[in-house]
């Protein structure tokens, strides 16, 4: 359950990302592949060395989904249901990988927002993204 303050922090940070989903998403993926190379096994369709165009395209899709989650953060089960099906039946990303994505997401936010990224924002986003990951994996078995 997100408190009113947490929801406000989440929305406030998202306002800074909105409109820049592609570049933030590309940076997220680049960090993920650089810091945690094993995650690349789930992105074989992007090729051995995904280029900027591919990172921007796929990154945009991922961040747009996060944006939808932000918009409907009180009803993640319903709004993320199709993505939950996709992850359970097709992608089958091992659940241990989601914290790695979340860590990279936090570093993206922290390196862009710097002093403006308060501990309360960091805590709210950690809780929110963890909640998203739980929904994405809850149909796994």
């Amino acid at each position, binding site marked *: 359950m997100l408190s009113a303050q947490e929801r406000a922090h989440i929305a406030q940070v998202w306002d800074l990302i909105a409109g820049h989903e592609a570049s933030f998403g590309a940076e997220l993926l680049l960090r993920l592949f650089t810091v945690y190379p094993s995650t690349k096994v789930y992105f074989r369709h992007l090729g051995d060395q995904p280029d900027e165009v591919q990172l921007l395209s796929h990154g945009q899709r991922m961040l747009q989904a996060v944006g939808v989650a932000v918009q409907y953060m009180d009803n993640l089960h319903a709004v993320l249901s199709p993505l939950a099906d996709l992850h359970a039946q097709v992608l089958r990303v091992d659940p241990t990988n989601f914290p790695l994505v979340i*860590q990279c997401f936090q*570093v993206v936010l*922290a390196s862009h*927002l710097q002093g403006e990224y308060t*501990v309360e924002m960091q805590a709210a986003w950690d809780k929110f993204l963890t909640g998203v990951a739980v929904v994405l994996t809850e149909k796994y078995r």
Partner: protein
Amino acid sequence: MVHFTAEEKAAITGLWGKVNVEEAGGEALAGRKLLVIYPWTQRFFDSFGNLSSASAIMGNPKAKAHGKEVLTSSREAIKNLNNLKDAFAKLSELHCDKLHMDPENFRLLGDVIVIVLATHSGRECTPDMHAAWQKLLSGVATALAHKYH
């Protein structure tokens, strides 16, 4: 054993030099942020007093002091990038035998430290820098867990 390339060592020392160690490192923000973001980690710190809110935790003098103590202990050990297991052996025994701390906390703290560094260094925290720091802190966490039995 973790092996750091010349580039990774340069990334680690370069970032450490750029970040004002007295300010960011001296403040040891990561420990207090850990207690805020993952409240269950407070279970080891009943003696700290008021940890009831984010601002209480960030201002807590015992938490601040403890953070600095952890940082000082780590700083010496981190000078031995090539042999983290030996460098942290005594600390590992302490955390197992006396402190009874779950090694998962070392990984959580390491992640928060990377985010603090990213906050301070901004866009200079490139993916390669980020990777080098995660590798270092992951090596430290493993070394700290090595003597658990």
